């Protein structure tokens, strides 16, 4: 947004200074612990116990990463995660966008009924066991569909997207319909292209959800060859937490828990891939997409 600043008053300039300072500080506060985690993942156990906080390891070591990547399982699980995330997000978007569009049309017969149905389901749910029995009844156990389909639509996202569609300028749709577009044509050729920021946003929300999800994978996937990255990483972390207090659950010959550095490397490995997605999506947020189409 290149808005000239020559009209700014003194007060506005003070605000600018404050704004930059504040955001810089906030960015530092949020990112520092993560830098520490990255630094810690390259540090030795001794250093992690001795120094409480640091941004550079004293003598860098790759042992934690060697430990994590010591087998091909982790690579396979990364592929699994990518698969679940990509296919899952596409499924989510397909289901959510279509439904949201049709519900955004206020003249749709039965619309209120459908909306109430959705809101109600957001608050009342049958819980884990009935959900599991449904997935089992569908014969989906141990397939990725069991991980993806039960969360195909987030009612929360659906409602926001629907609201966004409602706020699209009505004139555009009218024009398209006059040009002979069907409702599907309007949706496909007008609404979707106009909604790139919203698709990017909710695509990101869904993708992050899939990437971080371990619970349904643990529940529905018996075959450990299908496990996503987060399950693998979580097991490594859980292992070290067990050493802290619980005594009865441990074997006398219990494997020594992986050290702090491994825990931190686990966070880095689990987070960095999905973090990298965001900067690519940012360009969709950067400019108003409506501009050309409305004024054209």
């Amino acid at each position, binding site marked *: 947004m290149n808005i000239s600043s020559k009209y700014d008053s003194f007060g506005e300039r003070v605000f600018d200074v404050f704004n930059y300072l504040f955001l810089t500080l906030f960015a530092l506060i949020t990112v520092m612990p993560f830098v520490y985690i990255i630094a810690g993942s390259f540090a*030795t*156990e*001794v250093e992690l*116990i*001795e120094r409480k906080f640091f941004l550079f390891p004293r003598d860098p070591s790759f042992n934690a990463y060697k430990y994590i990547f*010591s*087998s*091909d*399982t982790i690579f396979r*699980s990364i592929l699994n995660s990518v698969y679940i995330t990509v*296919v899952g997000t*596409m*499924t989510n978007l*397909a289901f959510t966008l279509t439904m949201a569009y049709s519900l955004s049309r206020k003249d749709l017969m039965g619309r209120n009924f459908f909306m109430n149905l959705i809101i109600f389901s957001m608050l009342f749910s049958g819980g*884990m*066991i009935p959900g*599991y*029995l*449904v997935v*089992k*009844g*569908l*014969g*989906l*156990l*141990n*397939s*990725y*569909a069991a991980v*993806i*389909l039960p969360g*195909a639509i987030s009612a929360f996202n659906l409602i926001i997207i629907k609201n966004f569609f409602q706020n699209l300028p009505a004139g555009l749709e009218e024009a398209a319909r006059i040009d002979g577009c069907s409702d599907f044509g309007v949706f496909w050729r007008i609404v979707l292209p106009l909604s790139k920021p919203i698709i990017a946003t909710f695509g990101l929300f869904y993708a992050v959800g899939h990437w971080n999800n371990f*619970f349904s994978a*643990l*529940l529905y996937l*018996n*075959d*450990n060859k299908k*496990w996503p990255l987060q*399950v*693998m990483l*979580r*097991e*490594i972390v*859980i*292992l070290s*937490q*067990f*050493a*802290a*207090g619980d*005594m*009865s*659950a*441990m*074997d*006398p*010959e219990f*494997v*020594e828990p992986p050290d702090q550095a491994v825990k931190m490397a686990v966070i880095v490995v689990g987070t960095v891939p999905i973090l990298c997605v965001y900067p690519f999506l940012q360009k969709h947020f950067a400019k108003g997409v409506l501009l050309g189409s409305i004024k054209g």
Partner: protein
Amino acid sequence: MKGKKWPRPFVALLIAAMMVILAACSGGSGSDAGSNPPSGHTGGTDTDSQAPSEQKGEPLKLSIMVPAFSTELPDKSSPVWQRLEEYTHTDLEIIWTPNSSYSDKLNITLASGELPTIINVGKEPSVISAVRNGAFWEVGPYLKDYPNLSQANEIVLNNTSIDGKIYGVYRARTLGRMGVTYNMVWLENLGLEPAKTIDEFYDILWQFTYNDPDRNGKDDTYGMTVTKYTGPWDIMQVWFGAPNKWGEDENGKLIPDFMTPEYREALKFFRKIYEEGLVNEDFAVMDPAVWNDPFINGESGVFVDVADNARRLNNSMQDKEPRDKPYTGVFQAPVGPKGHRDLPTSGWSGMFVISKSKVKTEEELRRVLEFLDRLNDVEMKLLLGYGIEGRHYDLVDGYVVPRDLDASLKKEIEGFNQLLMFLGEPEPGYEETEINQMINEVWEANEAIVVGNPAEPLVSEVYGRVGQQLDNIIGDARIQYIVGQINDEEFDAAIDLWMRSGGEEYIQEINELYEAAKAH
């Protein structure tokens, strides 16, 4: 049986439409075991032969559900698995379930009505309810017929019992596992001996705090690290003579530990060592994840926890700065006013229960029990614990010497140790280092001084309802007393509150159950 049937064709049709974009690779599982005819039971098992030839007929089909602590688990191509099946004459399906989701999976398994033949369970509410509704075989009367299973410990069996009956074969754990770990360098510097009495224990804490045990000329040390996790307090109060959760009063009635004078004595001691700065001032909020750190960093020098933690602490300190002799030493609890006492563990970690829906007849039950018994043969213990001799480990002078395994070999043995029950004759182990020897000595000596919890096997309905609230009332009051936020009267008030919040009922119920169990 459960009648939870969905209109499947209808649903499947709908779902089919939804799955066009999904590459679903649904794997069918649902092997039915227990269909093959049970072979005749042969009384004694032959522990010498590698592959028992006496068994005839088809291998017994079995499924067994156990927790997994590893993400890399073997499949049937593992030679360990093959040897296991061969030795026990079974066709085995092992369902490893990540420990973090084990209880969810267990509940789902119970709900789905398709139980594996053998499941590892604890005494969680859903299991107790399943037991009471006849989901599992009562195995108590059969155990005596099996050479290994018959050697199960009576106390532990009692702990695992539900309503006075034994429903599972427990997985044994060291009963007297606790120990006091010291920083040996500090003890030497100060010319002190490990504490034999509580007074000596106090003296060590005091000197570690105020007499510069690390000889660096700075006042930068303290006695003992404690965290939010209350284990150390639970252990130490038993030294003072407080019962292990429940004890008998002068009339032979069970009362909770905090109503005994010994408990209060211990509490006063805790408060004193806190006031004098012998334990870390922030213990009430300290993150248990960093419990070991001050000891390793040379800030504190005493650790009250499981004895084997001495090894972990020593390893970390050796990493920091190698030393010929171990940094840590571990010893039994000091002797208190009521004699030499220590807190035990429950002695078990899960038990194998046998499902009635998979195992229909007594004949079959006996075969399954025989399988469990055989897992306790020395050969099987070695196989499940260490792998195959000459492949995963070597036996040298009666000690197990593990080989340096690459990932694929390591994977072959991963997870099998969850099948171990550690009953019967002990198997060879690793050669003992100085510190392991100390740990083992403490464990063995502890057997004689551990104090059982008479109420452990009792399943209280009141506790199920309000137990955690009751525990919080006393648990919080205890910590607040130690840090000096409340005094004796206020602690008594907390006990009153406990009584009013259901505690009175709880005591009464426990005593009734206790009487009933004794009469049994």
